Structure formats: C-alpha cells, structure tokens
C-alpha cells in the first residue's frame, strides 16, 4: 500500500528518538466503519498541493504508557498532558509525512493538531481520499497511525 512503508519508517524514527520506545509495524490495512473504544486520537490536517489528514489512534493504556515515556513522568489518567502529548505526536508524524509528500518544503503545510478522547467514537474519512492504516505494537500494546490523502484537486 502506498505510503505504508513511509508511515512505518517515520513512526519508528519518532518513537525511537523522541519517545524512547521501540515500536514494531504490523500489516497495513484500510480501517473503515470501525469504532474506537476507550481511546484517544490525535489528528492534523495537511493542506496545499496535496490535501490530507494524519491521525494516530491510541487505546487509553497505550496513550498513558507513551506519554509517561515521552514526558518522563508518570501519568495515570487521560489529562491535559496526555492530550498535548498525543497532539504533539500527530504534529511530528504530520511533519515527517510532509517532508515525504513535499520534499521541496513549500507546497504542503500542516494545520493545528486536535485530540479526541472517548469511550466509543468513530473517525471517518469523508473526502474521496486514499486511506492507509498502519498498526504498531510495543510492550504488548498497540496503536495505529493513519493517513488519508486526497488525490483530487
């Protein structure tokens, strides 16, 4: 799947250098019509010559473990720190994808990240866009990184 390898590389890079966690990419797929349960998601828009949306979806437990590793302090509930950390991860992943989509650096820009947290929610792609989801595992936990790219202009 297009961009799956880029997502895997970018995510492994960011996690090993910024979060100090080794994460392993699993088989990419297209996530459709599925609910996220007890999870937190960070989303960020890509706009310019290529339009899209990058998302990271983390079960609460994975989000707590990652934020603890990222901030170097214990977090026990989904609070502002966790939301900021997940937004920042979306921002860093968006930045990596931007350099892949736009090597020149002037044609694609990132919007502001946003985080969604809930017991049960769905995040659906609406535009006529290509979707790829890459699951990752670490220490017995999982999360997903997802990219939607609109080819129409």
């Amino acid at each position, binding site marked *: 799947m297009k961009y799956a390898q880029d997502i895997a590389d970018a995510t492994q890079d960011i996690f090993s250098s910024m979060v100090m966690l080794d994460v392993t990419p699993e088989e990419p797929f297209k996530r459709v019509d599925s609910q996220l349960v007890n999870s937190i998601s960070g989303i960020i828009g890509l*706009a310019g010559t290529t339009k899209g*949306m990058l998302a990271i979806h983390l079960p609460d437990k994975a989000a707590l473990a990652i934020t603890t590793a990222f901030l170097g302090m214990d977090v026990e509930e989904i609070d502002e720190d966790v939301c900021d950390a997940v937004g920042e991860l979306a921002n860093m992943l968006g930045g990596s994808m931007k350099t892949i989509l736009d090597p020149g650096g002037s044609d694609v820009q990132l*919007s502001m*990240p*946003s985080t969604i947290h809930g017991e049960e929610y769905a995040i659906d792609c609406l535009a006529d866009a290509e979707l790829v989801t890459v699951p990752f595992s670490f220490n017995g936990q999982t999360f997903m990184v997802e990219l939607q790219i609109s080819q129409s202009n």
Partner: protein
Amino acid sequence: MEFAKKIVETTEEIFNTMIFMEISADAPLEQGKQALGCHISAMIGLTGGFSAMLGIHCPEAIGLAISGAMLGMEIEEIDADVKDALGEIANMVAGGLKERFAAENIDLELAIPTAISGKSYTIASSTRSNRVIIPFSIEQGQFFIEMKYNLN
C-alpha cells in the same frame, strides 16, 4: 483578526444560502476546555497565514435536523449521509473563512474534512492554542462552531 465575527458571518451566510435554515449566533463561550455534549462533529484543518482547525459539533437531534434540511429528507439516525453533510458544512465554513481572510491578505489552504461520531467523546485543543467557540441556535437547540488557532 476578529475570529468570532468572521465565524458568525460565514456560518450565517452558509446556513441562509445553502441549507435554508435560520440560525442565530449566541455569545462566544469562554475559552478553554469545554465538554460540548455532542454526538457528531466534523473537523477540517486550515493552514497558511496561521494554522487552525475548524469544527462543527452537534448533539444528535441537531445533526439530524441540519443534515435533513440540507439534503431535503427526513433522517433518523447518524449515518454516512449525516457525516457527509456535516463534513460539507465544515468545508464550506472553512472556505468562507478563507475568503474573508484572503480579503485581508492572509492566505489559507484547507485540508480535508473528517467526521467524528459516537456516544461520548471530548475534543481537546493544545493548551498552547487559542480557541473560539460560538454557539448557534436553531429551532431544535444549539450547535457549536469551534476554531482553534495559532498565529505562528
């Protein structure tokens, strides 16, 4: 930059001309983390002169009423049509804001819209960002247009 004023004008214009619904803007909510008690949202990123994320957040009944009016049919549950309709509204409001900022020589580009739906979720913005939330009233209740932004 008059974010609140631009959001109110743009949203009223879209609802009057595209959805044929009368809406009235209420006072902006206090900034900060607010639980809006919503069941269907659509969000779209904007970037360029500044970076932002625009969202429309609706309780279920309001989301159904708005998408029903927009599509000209009765809708009974949050389905793909409702998500598409709200995504289209987010897209149109963001497009209207883009035009208003362009008139002040602030260029913006739009990302693509995404729908969020569910029994319970909250949407947070970075603690470092600015946030404007405007409630709008229709006959059936209130919905919210939210814009988070960083002036880079």
